[in-house]
């Protein structure tokens, strides 16, 4: 090779590497978020769109999608998909409400006195038990998804399409096909209530609702796991090329089960937020088709359904973009069908831009 052509080659690859940088990519998504937000800020009258109240609402509204998107990001990077996320959210709300109802209903008289005492003495205990049960059931559901994918060697799309119906059926069965109303309000109801713009001044020290703090902590942990741990490397490797991962000694099956389990766990967390969001009831019909918005958030955030690509930060931005489109459209008085068409279009454009970026690379 002549010196001349060598220079050519290195120049070309050097340019490519700038575009490959994850930060440039994330910056691009962030710009898209800013542009979309600014558009609505400009169009909605009276500066209402960038009021503190609205900003807080955007955060609150996007939290459920964003939390479930944490798990979905892991699944998508590993080359899979989880269509049962919406059903797991519903199942979680039902389990929480069911546990909160336990002392009122099904407990024998003697035990009821005991538990009554506990509940009176430790008012935070029962909600904590309910929250734990909800997340535990959700995590188990995710683990079953993973086991089915790995053991039956079926494509994740089919497995989770099936469990999407089964988890919702479980939720309906447990709730007797009705909404479950817990006997009294607990702190679980208020984890998504406004803080800074709340009438209750004693909440403002929290800055953000506790549920959103939870999301932020969970997102940070998920991002660290993905970028800085062996599990994270393995997830990327499996999604990029499962055969290579196996050749390199990655425990492919075990890792996949863990990934679906984590997806269930995060869907469970999302379920906890949803429980608070729908004012503290267990609703077996809630969260229908949420999985599609969650997948959309991941894809807008740079996730590839072919696996091997995606980022937590990107998915968070994706969830925000979808929420802003919904709320902005709503405040402009757009009809529902226009909002939905808009979001559909944005998803296609986002993926198209991503493909074009890829073609420029290869």
């Amino acid at each position, binding site marked *: 090779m002549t010196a001349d052509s060598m220079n050519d080659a290195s120049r070309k690859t050097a340019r490519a590497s700038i575009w490959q940088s994850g930060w440039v990519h994330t910056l691009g998504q962030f710009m898209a978020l800013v542009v979309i937000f600014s558009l609505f800020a400009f169009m909605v009258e009276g500066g209402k769109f960038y009021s503190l109240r609205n900003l807080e609402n955007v955060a609150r509204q996007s939290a459920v999608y964003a939390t479930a998107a944490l798990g979905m990001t892991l699944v998508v990077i590993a080359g899979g998909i989880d269509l049962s996320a919406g059903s797991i959210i519903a199942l979680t709300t039902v389990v929480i409400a069911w546990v909160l109802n336990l002392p009122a209903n099904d407990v024998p008289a003697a035990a009821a006195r005991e538990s009554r005492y506990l509940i009176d003495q430790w008012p935070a205990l029962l909600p904590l038990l309910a929250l734990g049960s909800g997340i535990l059931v959700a995590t188990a559901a995710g683990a079953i998804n993973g086991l089915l994918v790995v053991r039956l060697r079926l494509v994740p799309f089919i497995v989770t399409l099936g469990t999407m119906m089964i988890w919702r059926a479980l939720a309906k069965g447990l709730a007797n096909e009705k909404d479950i109303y817990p006997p009294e309000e607990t702190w679980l109801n208020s984890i998504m209530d406004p803080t800074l713009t709340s009438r209750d001044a004693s909440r403002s020290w929290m800055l953000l609702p506790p549920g959103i703090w939870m999301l932020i902590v969970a997102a940070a942990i998920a991002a660290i796991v993905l970028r800085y741990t062996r599990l994270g490397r393995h997830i990327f490797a499996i999604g990029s090329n499962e055969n290579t991962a196996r050749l*390199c000694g990655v425990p492919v099956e075990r890792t996949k089960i863990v990934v679906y389990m984590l997806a269930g766990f995060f869907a469970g967390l999302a379920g906890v937020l949803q429980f608070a969001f729908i004012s503290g009831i267990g609703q077996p019909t809630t969260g229908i088709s949420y999985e599609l918005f969650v997948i959309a958030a991941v894809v807008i955030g740079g996730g590839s359904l072919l696996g091997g690509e995606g980022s937590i930060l990107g998915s968070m931005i994706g969830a925000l973009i979808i929420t802003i489109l919904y709320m902005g459209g709503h405040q402009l008085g757009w009809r529902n069908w226009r909002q939905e068409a808009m979001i559909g279009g944005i998803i296609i454009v986002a993926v198209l831009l991503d493909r074009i970026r890829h073609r420029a690379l290869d």
Partner: protein
Amino acid sequence: MVGVFTPRLEMRGVSKRFGATRALHRVDLQLRPGEVLALVGENGAGKSTLMKVLSGAIAPDEGQMWLDGELFRPRNPLDARQRGIAMIYQELSLAPHLSVMENILLGIEPTAGPLIRWSEMRRRAAAALREIGMGDLRPDMPVNRLSIAQQQIVEIARAVALESRVLVLDEPTSSLSRGDIDRLFALIRSLRQRGVGIVYISHFLEEVQEISDRYAVLRDGELVGEGPTAGTPVEKIVALMVGREVEELYPHSTRGDAGEVVVEIRDLTCADKPRSASLRLRRGRVLGIAGLMGAGRTELMRAIFGLQPVTSGEIRVGGYTGTRSPMSRWAQGVGMVSEDRKQEGLAIGLTVADNITLPRLDGLGPARFVLPSRERAAAAKWVNRFSIKCASPAQRVAALSGGNQQKVAIARLLHADVDVLLLDEPTRGIDVGSKAQIYRLIDELAAGDPAAGRPAKAVLVISSYLPELLGVCDEIAVMAKGRLGPARPVAQWNEHQLMLAAIGKE
């Protein structure tokens, strides 16, 4: 107007680059009507890229083509096909569920309005088959019930039905018997009579001598020689293809006594093949396995590495039998390079660093953490040592040339610091420079350097390229139809004997 001296096809200054790789560099090629041009060159020399340019599958960066004196700039494969370029690839491109006639007239079906005129279709397909002397092939037979040779005939009939002016045959004889080859050659000669220009790509130089009028040799994307086939000795063509003397390509340092046995296999049998295979790998020795495609060599290696279930027999690694999985093999100091770089060998969407460090992520951070900075530093060491051409270890593997990709796949074993290297076709489809580097590396690893604290390693190499095996190995065993012959010192073998053993006629 097409005169006697107008070439059927002319390519001038065709260049093409993929990222850092120069696939074609100013290639000039002429093909006269009724001429058979043999296009030869090693894997990765640029033959298939050149043919993709001709077929419109990729656009050249520079250069132009003329077809019968007219500027020819195909927009896509369909466009090229309609202008008279017919390609017949190694992997046949027929629709297996459709009939012979449907395949022959695919895309040019005679119609009446929206309906297909079946009688006309049958007539035209039969005419095309008759024209190439294959009138006895039934037009309504589904193609998946035909033999490979018959399927090839259907492809050629398709080219005739399209009135193709240029026919490209890519390794057409690799899966044919000698009788079928003779029939194919008769067919090629009759097409030549009709004035079709034929490009014949083959690794079998004896066939090239038999059928072609002229040869053209590509090496590293450049046309390095051409001329009439008659009177040109095969050795001259080989010298042009390789471009250097064989001795300097295969370094072979003097090695001490063979070290301990690190892998021992006894009567290993898998579901189909291998059958009852036994071998020993020792430190300081390179063992080669020769054989035909499908003889069971790859299955043997995969069984050793835990990628394929074993029916019976014993595999001892470092004296232990026990669980067989890639994970446990890496832990035992065994690493493997796959024959299929894209499907298995590398995650090409990930970075160079990711690919190199994947089997051994410990030590790249505290506990189970992996710090990207340390990961890149660890990879950079091998990138330098092995002169892998990339912008940085953080570059995606997809942007690298084949040779550099393969070096990444091998660097992985060095990073994991294995004692046993299992290499399946380690130089398939890569440039000569990278090949030479890989040969040198195999030699260095097998020799070891006790002074520098690097013990000699054991290497198992599978290759279909016999000069390579004879060049790098200490011992060679031949596998034929699932049975592994005894390993013998390389001095006791030559290409001819290896070939005889591979076809089971030792």
